């Protein structure tokens, strides 16, 4: 069924982790159609660090669910890990989520009365990994998020920050290509939240997992390498997409190095892996500064990534056509 000629990408081209082309999602509520998403196109490459922002009801949660394979679009084409979700049955979607996506939620969503290591091992259960290997891999992952000493603690014996670290370990234990975080710091105080964010960024940098984060927090959003702003079910600004970023040309380089990012956000970065009790300076000033000038806190390397992302989007049309020809993608 597969045609090798079209399945093989040209040398040097990266297969996107997630590719959405003109994706829409319409809900039927009591016979009334509600358009939550109205034609969204975007590409997430491995290693990306994307913040998804927008007011409540803008469709960013709907988009998150679609990108994570929890839901499927009613229009357009969505390819996750090279597979067109519209061609997948629910069990195949589940396997796809298990293999390619890691979720981190605002409310942690840990199983109560279940130890940290068992919580982290849960995705491996559905992958058929043996109990001993599950525990080994989960313990190793907990070590990476700085909870190697808390393996057998239960969620109610841990602080919020620790619980979110467990959730992050659970999301990454399957070595996914994309980590979707829905307000990961929303239920945490600012110090703990900053530490969790640090951890996410560190893991993003170390393992090359793409980090896509829904957030209300301008300070958090400002730290992402790429920002996608949504309103009324459409992307109104994508710092990686020149077509949508009408209010902000991607070529503008503010020339502010990473070290100029205000201290409270930068400080935990140097002490990543430390517990939530890590002392940190007042964050109020930083929030004010980034809140006023969110676009100016972008780092130079972010723009270089933006440029690469832009290229990817520019190739989108051609790639889309290829995908459509692929029998496996549409069958």
């Amino acid at each position, binding site marked *: 069924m597969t045609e090798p000629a079209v399945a093989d990408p040209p040398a040097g081209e990266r297969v996107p982790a997630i590719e959405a082309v003109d994706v829409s999602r319409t809900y039927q509520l009591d016979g009334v159609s509600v358009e939550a998403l109205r034609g969204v196109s975007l590409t997430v490459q491995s290693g990306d660090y994307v913040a998804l922002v927008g007011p409540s009801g803008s469709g960013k949660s709907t988009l998150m669910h679609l990108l994570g394979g929890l839901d499927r679009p009613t229009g357009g084409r969505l390819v996750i890990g090279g597979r067109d979700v519209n061609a997948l049955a629910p*069990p195949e979607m589940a*396997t796809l989520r298990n293999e390619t996506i890691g979720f981190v939620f605002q409310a942690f969503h840990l199983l109560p009365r279940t130890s940290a290591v068992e919580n982290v091992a849960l995705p491996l259960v559905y992958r058929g990994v043996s109990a001993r290997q599950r525990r080994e891999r989960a313990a190793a992952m907990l070590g990476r998020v700085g909870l190697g000493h808390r393996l057998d603690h239960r969620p109610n014996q841990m602080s919020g920050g620790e619980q979110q670290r467990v959730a992050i370990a659970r999301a990454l234990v399957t070595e996914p290509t994309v980590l979707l975080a829905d307000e990961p710091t929303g239920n945490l105080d600012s110090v703990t939240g900053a530490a969790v964010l640090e951890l996410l960024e560190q893991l993003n940098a170390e393992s090359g997992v793409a980090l896509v984060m829904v957030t209300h927090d301008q300070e958090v959003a400002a730290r992402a390498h790429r920002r996608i702003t949504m309103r009324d079910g459409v992307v109104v600004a994508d710092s990686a997409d020149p077509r949508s970023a009408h209010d902000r040309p991607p070529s503008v380089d503010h020339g502010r190095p990473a070290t100029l990012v205000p201290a409270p956000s930068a400080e935990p970065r140097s002490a990543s892996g430390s517990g939530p009790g890590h002392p940190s300076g007042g964050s109020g000033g930083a929030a004010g500064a980034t809140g006023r000038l969110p676009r100016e806190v972008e780092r130079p390397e972010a723009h270089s990534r933006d440029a690469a992302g832009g290229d990817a989007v520019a190739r989108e049309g051609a790639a889309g056509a290829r995908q459509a020809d692929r029998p496996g993608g549409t069958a």
Partner: protein
Amino acid sequence: MALDALRANRLRSALTMLGVIIGVASVVLLVAIGTGTKQKVEQQVEGLGSNLLLVVPGRIEVGNAPVVSPLTLKDVDAVTRVVGDPDRVAVTVASGATARAGARSDFTTVQGVLETTPAVFTRSLARGRYLTGTDVDTSRRVAVLGDSVARALFPDRDPLGQQVALAGVRFRVIGVFAPLGQSLGVDRDDEVHVPVTAAQRLWGTQRVDGIAVKAPDRERIDELGERIVAELNRRHPDTEFSAVTQQQILGVLGDILGVLTGVLAAIAGISLLVGGVGVSNIMLVSVRERTREIGLRKAVGARPRDIGVQFLLEAVLLTTIGGLTGMALGVGTALLVDALSPIPAAITWWSLALAFGVSAVVGIVFGVVPAQRAGRLDPVVALRTE
């Protein structure tokens, strides 16, 4: 995993199981009582003696009115000629009568019999001797007491040689039967044997109620019965006679007790069904309560089937633990009933296997709907649930 979920809600799991426990326990107990009763009745019918043929006027059927017997001792002689061996033929003419000894009295059954009775039916004496041919031929007023009668009339004396008044006529006690115990709630030791001739004289009758024949072998028992019935029909053309074997009696009794056991088990089965509905109900509640957990499991890669199997396993675990507990409870109660009450109870392996199997099936049947509902939950909706 499923066990953890049950442990998390101990009280609720226990209450849900209670329905199954009670259902299974009552099935096990009632089947045990039914089986025990059947076994005991069979034992007693067998215990009457082997290869027994009972000849009575009328047709032996459940619910048939008894017929006044036209048989006399002349008919007994005729039957004896057919059988060819007087030692194999026993008779009875029975009636209720008050037995009196001094100031004590006891209402009992007086049976007029031949001296052949202990040989035909398997009876043995505790003291003294049984009736002899001479006692019968001379209508001698001698009596052999059942164990209960002997103890009622002579609680502190040796009854041998004492006088007993039966319906006002004095008889001399020559023997006491070894105790037999109860059978179907009837005290088999509550009887007095006297010579059939003396009994007929006592009641002013020539009648014989029934004839019992001990056949020489099991193979020809039916043929012998037919010959006896034919002879009696020749002598009494107006009356129908029946010759029944122990096997036939057992068959009739077994049918009755089988139906009874079935009805009891069915009633107990209804309570098991109600227990199953309880399981279904609690599993639906559990699915709703754990919607977020289901959403999360789906998000990390659980397929609909994985979730369904998880909940189905919980339901089956709930009912099988309940089933095992119910079995233990049922067996324990049955043993207590058997030991402490006159009701016999016997545990059979098939009733245990059935109870366990049914409780597992109940778990599957009543767990399927909640499990399917859990498996089909939309992960997006499930995760959003608070």
